[in-house]
């Protein structure tokens, strides 16, 4: 058993290898190396050819387009994302709370989405913000929302000739925001549960409301239908709407382990956020 490993010099070379050899990209390797490890002192064996893409500068970096869309290269690391003020708050927070420093220096956003784990931290805020992934093959380019891309735990719509090149986050527009990661401990922690929510208020009317729940089911949970329960309503009416809303949201998530905790805590956090919004505080993030 010998591993086949390619090291393309350019994105184009990588795309050719992807198409012709079906080589699987290894970015930071923090998921792949762990998934195929065989033990101390033993080289991992991959059941497929691997190509190391870590060094491809074309897929690195963060830029902002004219309409405010933030574009993050697939090979950008969590540290780079967490440090960049131009990246929306929710994504920065999620990136800053991943693993420990060494992990954050290595883990990439493309890898986090590519891995499609329900406990992965970045999809949750990306799905909240209707972010999209750009999928490139040697023949064509596709774009779809992260929500569409991730099907369920460890399953996504990546074709075997495609590479994720970038993630595009439309400029968020909100009055109030909320982000919480409940990890297994205070640092270097896998998420037990995460939640983000935003609300846009104009003249006391809720113009937009979104929430997304991470680590609470086989994939990040959002429901435009349930979100609609609040859109168009008066902020002052929130106290009377809250219970129906949190109950409806409860139907959106489907936690397998620790269901009582995950359900009760999701309700607690959403209720808190909504009741805080009802007080119409200064706009910004609700802590």
């Amino acid at each position, binding site marked *: 058993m010998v591993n086949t490993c390619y090291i393309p010099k350019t994105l184009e070379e990588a795309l050719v290898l992807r198409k012709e050899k079906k080589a699987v990209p290894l970015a930071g390797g923090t998921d792949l190396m762990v998934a195929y490890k065989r033990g101390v002192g033993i080289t991992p064996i991959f059941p497929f050819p691997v190509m190391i893409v870590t060094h491809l500068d074309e897929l690195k970096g963060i830029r902002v387009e004219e309409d405010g869309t933030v574009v993050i290269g697939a090979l950008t690391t969590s540290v780079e994302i967490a440090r960049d003020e131009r990246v929306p708050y929710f994504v920065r927070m999620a990136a800053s709370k991943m693993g420990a420093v060494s992990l954050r220096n290595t883990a990439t956003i493309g890898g986090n989405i590519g891995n499609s784990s329900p406990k992965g931290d970045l999809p949750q805020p990306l799905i909240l913000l209707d972010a999209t992934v750009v999928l490139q093959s040697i023949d064509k380019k596709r774009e779809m929302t992260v929500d569409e891309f991730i099907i369920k735990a460890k399953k996504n719509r990546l074709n075997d000739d495609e590479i994720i090149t970038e993630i595009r986050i439309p400029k968020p527009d909100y009055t109030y925001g909320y982000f919480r990661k409940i990890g297994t401990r205070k*640092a270097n922690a896998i998420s037990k549960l995460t939640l983000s929510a935003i609300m846009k208020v104009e003249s006391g009317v809720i113009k937009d409301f979104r929430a997304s729940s991470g680590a609470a089911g086989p994939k990040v949970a959002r429901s435009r239908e349930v979100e609609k329960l609040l859109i168009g309503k008066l902020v002052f009416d929130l106290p009377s709407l809250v219970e129906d809303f949190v109950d409806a949201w409860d139907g959106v998530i489907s936690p397998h382990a620790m269901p009582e905790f995950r359900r009760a805590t999701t309700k607690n956090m959403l209720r808190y956020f909504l009741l805080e919004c009802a007080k119409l505080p200064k706009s910004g993030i609700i802590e």
Partner: protein
Amino acid sequence: MAVTHITDKMKRVDAYEKARGEAKYLCDFHLPGMLYARMVRSTIPRGNILSINLPELPDGYYFISAKDIPEGGKNALHMIAEDYRCFADGDVKFIGETIGILVGSDRGVLYELEKMVEVTYEELPAVTTIDDALEKKAIISGEDNIMCKLECEMGENVDEVLSKADSIIEETFETGYQEHVHLETNSVACAYEDGKFVIYASAQCPFYIRTSIACTMGIKSDDIIVRQMTTGGAFGGKEHFPDVIAGPLIVACNKIRKPIFMIFDREEDMEFSVKRHPSRTVFRTGLDKDGNILGTDIKIYYNVGAYLTSSYVVLQRGVFHSTGVYRFPGARAWGFGVATNCFPTCAFRGFGAPQTLYAIEMHLDHIARKFGYDPAEYKKKYFLKQGEETITQGHIVEKVMLEEMMKQITDASDYYRKVKEYAIGSGKGIGISFYNHGGAFTGNGEQAIIKAKLKLKKEGEKVSILCGSTEMGQGFRSIMRKIVSDTVGIDIDNVFYDNPDTSKVVDSGPTAASRSTMVVGFLCEKAAKEMKERWNEGDFEVIKQYEHPEGHPWDQTTFRGDAYLGYGWGACVVEVEVDKLTKEVTTKGIWSSHDIGRPIDELIVHGQVNGGIIQSLGYAALEKLECKDGRFKQRSISSYIIPTSMDFPHQEYFFVDNPYPWGPYGAKGMGELVFNGADSAYMGAVERAIGRDTFKIPMPPEDIQGVVDRK
């Protein structure tokens, strides 16, 4: 040339090489012609082995099992009993039991071969929890699944006390498994050198290994040399467990005559090594109308797994610590070591004491709150004092300074203001605990069983310390060199203390039971004193042997008398905030005071306090290890959660000066003491914050949510 004095805070002699990664551990060594071994383990909790089908083994690869034990040997590891088999033979008793080992030169090949070994079983009904075993869902040990038991009592007859009490409070407390997570995983090698077997091991007790596997091989202990390698942490996990690796390796080495290494992966170490005993402690406590304790009847159950290992001694310690630092008019405790088809449990820092100490602390907190007393004030009424009787009808020999310690930490933490301010259920809480730890071996074990020896050897200006006690990260090598440096009056760089080699050193007993500084360090001080007096005699050796201090009667058959030579004492305050939305707990402050006699090195002792308390808080807050149908659920360090430095804040720590007459420079044991009480202070704080009583640890946020939701 400078002498290092006891009062100097010293940098540990091994600090730099370890921090820089220069220290060499067993996995860094290579011996010519060496092979590796990989275990083939049982995959079911209980059953008969019908067949073992091996894949075709490449040249130079071997499968070693019970049939390879030489004539005259025995399929047993001599720990305390001889029930732990070197290899499962005919049947298996728990998931992870060694069936055989595969040996060969390439670890990748061994890994693949192991996956191809097919063992077929006839499965038998198994018991995997204390309840299963007590309900006799299957009988796996004796008539009732109780592998060992004991009872002891003191004071007034408890049955009478309970029959007259105004009220009886019955409460049951449970604690979970705990994994050691020593930084270095278990690793052992065996070679055949110059007509002797040589074991290289990451281990606490080289002489234990020697005895244990000499039994397996049926040879004299002297035909085996055990060399301790630099050991990256142990916490009890390397007290008896290295035997379980060394046994199969020596059997293999006997056949193959090549050096063979076995180095566990982290996942292997987590899933297939000994753990702390899960426990259940049931109190029936009789009270008068004002809530004063008249007497208590305590039943203690420890899940010992499939083999005894050190469990009987662990259970004894649990029983002897079950009334905590308190004296009640009457007390009786029963201990039951419950056999299950689970991985055997064994030594872990605290050695049985933490489970019952946690339980008694919570029990007193609950009674105090129920009757409207402050827990600190309530507990204080029952503090043991010098000369008072213990649960084994022994006496507290030393001065007890708990009240001074309590004052130190209640002042520093502003405890009394905070208990007033933090209303029950307010999300803020503060808790206080008191605890002790009996130093050294139980009863007369030091005198009757261990008979520790230590040798000092003078060559020119240099002195070597020759004993079997081991450095495993706790700082022992540093303090022993310091004791010699100060006592003899020579530069610490002229004092040598290498990792022990059983063919070169004398047996000073296991490095366990918080005994090394207290017992072996004392021998070292005595030997060094003699050496100083005779310094001008040229090159010579001094050997000292343990002498039992007068006035510590003990009867090991009835468990009566002074269970320990002396106690370390502790007090701890922990303050928390519990997030109302998520039940996440933030620890706001940790204050502790310990009576450890007199610190032999304040910096090293500080490290022990910090580490012990954090480990205890991890035990209470995070470290959930569930065993389902005999298999551990948390098998990696991403699912078994130990604390990081971010989880707990800076600690404030105090000591009291209470020199111990039979320890070096007044020191007594402290390595385990510092683990024994922060857990209950933390849980006391959490209880105040959420306004509910709790009955088990660990208690991560999801379980706190469960308690809050409880009707």
